[in-house]
């Protein structure tokens, strides 16, 4: 089993999933945040009866529609890809992982798709209040769907509420609430949706800034900016708080990811947080903390990760080689235990087939004692537990840096628009337009940290990606990768062009709304 791993297959399968997830994530954050801001705008319209607010609502709704369609298109692939490309994973976790996906469909997708029809086609068909309710239900439905898929993702990073069933060779759920309310899931959900609201707020501010620069739609643009700045600022601050919560959970549950995020090779007590820095190329080879330059705040990493300024933060070297002093087991030891788990599982099944209950029981007890290391049994090199450090390091720092910048931007735009001074600040308006894509960069970087940083695991410690893939020719996956890359790229270009054209046309011009 360990020997027949096809590296090309694993790489292409990962590439395909990364491609589809990255493309999907171009559209989801905007849906999550814009839906709420549209609902707020419509609420103001219904409460004040001011027609300008209706016009503002409808304009953003038009852009929302274009974005939503392509989000749906890229989303269906992800769901079925678990089956088509990760079939061994699907069986191993289906008992737990499938449930959130089904609940997402039943509770959230129908809510979203039913009321989105009312939102777009119901202006003259249903009462004002029912239309408003529909807009809120679309926002609620899309965020609810995010909850379930993020619960599923969190479970992969921190498998709880489960036990391994040796008869069926899969993880089975024993605590639904443990899965739903795991601290990793709660943090991930809150961090992801709040950061998505930031992306959506930057989108509204970016587009509105363009109107201000062009001296068009001044009322629409300035009202939208005020609303988006408040929404964005609150969301960005909340993102920072939940980000801290997420990092704390990573420190507890995925120490290798934390080490990669900070480029920390040698563990230390009272470790500092690197605000920015450039690691040297040989840092990885020599397993040394070697930077061209770095700006570090002392002791903060220990404080954030373990809530104590002197806490020991394990580095990559400690995790691969072990650290007796800190009672950290080496990767080789874990691999040994993992192999024991796998061989005893096989023996258990064999003895059961032979009806040898006594031997089956003894194999089972060995399996149970080592089951938590099962995934390590598939690895053939201790270094396999190290994720791609540079990619994780830079993505993490880009995400955090941009996050801090966004807080400043929202504060500035809010202050200036309340003082009615934003229209004249041409340079700032240009910077705000530039910030629109930066929101996406930060958001995608966050996912890269989460997903690259957890390699090699499909399920933390239990199943590496190399075992999770479907057994199929690598060329087949390469073909579908190219197919989807071309299709999604063409659709993305079309989407961006449509969006830009609609923005240029403005709220009135587009009869075909």
């Amino acid at each position: 089993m360990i020997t027949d791993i096809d590296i090309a297959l694993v790489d292409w399968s990962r590439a395909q999933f990364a491609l589809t997830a990255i493309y999907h994530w171009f559209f989801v954050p905007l849906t999550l945040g814009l839906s709420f801001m549209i609902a707020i705008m419509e609420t103001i319209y219904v409460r004040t009866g001011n027609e300008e607010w209706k016009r503002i609502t409808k304009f953003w709704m038009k852009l929302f529609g274009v974005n939503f369609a392509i989000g749906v298109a890229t989303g269906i692939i992800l769901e079925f890809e678990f089956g088509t490309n990760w079939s061994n994973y699907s069986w191993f976790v289906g008992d737990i992982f499938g449930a959130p996906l089904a609940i997402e469909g039943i509770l959230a997708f129908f809510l979203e798709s039913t009321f989105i029809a009312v939102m777009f086609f119901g202006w003259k068909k249903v009462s004002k209040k029912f239309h408003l309710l529909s807009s809120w239900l679309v926002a609620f439905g899309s965020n609810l769907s995010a909850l379930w898929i993020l619960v599923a993702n969190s479970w992969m990073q921190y498998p709880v509420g489960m036990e391994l069933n040796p008869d069926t060779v899969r993880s089975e759920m024993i605590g639904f609430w443990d899965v739903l309310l795991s601290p990793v899931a709660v943090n991930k959900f809150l961090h992801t949706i709040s950061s998505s609201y930031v992306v959506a707020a930057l989108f509204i501010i970016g587009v509105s800034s363009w109107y201000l620069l062009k001296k068009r739609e001044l009322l629409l643009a300035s009202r939208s900016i005020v609303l988006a700045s408040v929404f964005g600022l609150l969301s960005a601050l909340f993102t920072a708080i939940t980000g801290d919560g997420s990092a704390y959970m990573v420190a507890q549950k995925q120490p290798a990811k934390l080490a990669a995020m900070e480029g920390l090779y040698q563990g230390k007590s009272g470790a500092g947080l690197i605000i920015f820095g450039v690691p040297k190329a040989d840092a990885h080879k020599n397993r040394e903390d070697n930077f061209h330059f770095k700006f570090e705040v002392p002791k903060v990493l220990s404080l954030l990760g373990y809530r104590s300024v002197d806490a020991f933060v394990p580095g990559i070297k400690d995790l691969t080689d072990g650290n007796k002093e800190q009672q950290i087991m080496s990767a080789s030891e874990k691999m040994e235990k993992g192999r024991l788990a796998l061989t005893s599982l096989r023996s258990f099944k064999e003895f059961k087939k032979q009806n040898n209950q006594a031997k089956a029981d003894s194999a089972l007890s060995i399996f149970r004692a080592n089951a938590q290391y099962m995934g390590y049994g598939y690895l053939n090199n201790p270094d396999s537990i190290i994720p791609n450090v540079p990619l994780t390091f830079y993505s993490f720092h880009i995400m955090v840096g941009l996050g801090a910048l966004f807080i400043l931007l929202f504060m500035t735009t809010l202050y200036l628009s309340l003082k009615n001074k934003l229209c004249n600040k041409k340079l700032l308006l240009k910077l705000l337009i530039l910030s629109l894509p930066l929101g996406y960069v930060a958001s995608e970087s966050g996912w890269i940290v989460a997903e690259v940083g957890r390699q090699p695991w499909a399920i933390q410690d239990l199943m590496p990606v190399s075992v999770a893939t479907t057994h199929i020719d690598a060329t087949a996956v390469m073909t579908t990768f190219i197919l989807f890359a071309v299709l999604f790229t063409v659709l993305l270009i079309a989407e961006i062009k449509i969006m830009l054209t609609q923005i240029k046309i403005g709220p009135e011009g587009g009869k075909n709304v």
Partner: protein
Amino acid sequence: MFESCTYLFLQQYWWIIVSLLAAFFIFLTFVQGGQTLFGALSTNEDEKTMLINAIGRKWEFTFTTLVTFGGAMFAAFPKFYSTSFGGAYWLWIAILFCFVIQAVSYEFRKKPGNVLGAKTYEIFLYINGSIGIFLIGVAVGTFFTGSDFVLNEFNQVAWLNKTRGLEAVFNFQNVALGLTVFSLSRILGAQYFINSIDNDNIATRSRRQVGYNTLLFLVFFLIFVFMLLLNDGFSYTQDNGLVSKASNKYFHNLIEMPVVMLLFIMGVLLVLSGILITWFKKSTKGIWFSGSGTILTVLALLLLAGFNNTCFYPSATYLQSSLTIENSSSSKFTLAVMSYVSLFIPFVLLYMIFAWKAINKKRINHEELSETDHKY
């Protein structure tokens, strides 16, 4: 409540739910059927706009039902998910591809700057309605005809056919089911146009399409049903789960499960009566008869596939690898948890019906379209 149910009851309960989702999905493929009729039913751009808008307001229901069916299958019968999707790779990828291109087409088609041009998006919709639906019929056909795969001790699938699922289109029974579903979706699509568009020319042409497609439908549906009842099926024993071939398995299932037989007969009669009132009485309500008939017929067929000790996803080469609702399901605990969630389904149906009625209050005509902000 559900915790005290037997494991088998929960497995059957969830088979009924996924079957119902599949049945609703096939009814909702009137969207796809309609997509293949834009050219045949319109003589000018105005008429085409009405057709596209009529269907365009409903495509998300079909799409969502398909996605939810996938999720429910994953949750309730994960071994099917891993075996079939991972095994019959190219068949499912082809189906997915046909649905990806649908999702953007309504929204993008008429928008300036859409890069590919309106015609391309119309072709996307045609591909989704023709190849996509045909392949779904073929994939469901393998529930009865079987595939070539083997599962190892870790329940990991090895697909024995190099074409990874595409071989299913070389089986005549599967093809017959594919063409049945395709022609049925066109009948339903035409009936939906008659129901929702207020235009005599479109109604007349739609009725003609109901006629043509009924001929196609009857031929392939009868071929499929005869083959289904006459061919061997795959059966398993209750006590040790051993799988064996059983002659006329589905015929026996029909006799041994009179309720399913009743559902099947009622379903077929409703489909036909919907067609007849559309054709002879020029009724606009045909979609409701044929639609509910579709739901009952598909439900009955899937109950034939999964109940009465039948393997619903047979391995024709390694019989013991065949999937049954008992050996492929989630654990009892998960099924019980999911069953609580299923209690929301009637509520979901209610608000869907409510929203549907609100949007379809007024039939589509020039006036209605000119009042609409969001036009496709």
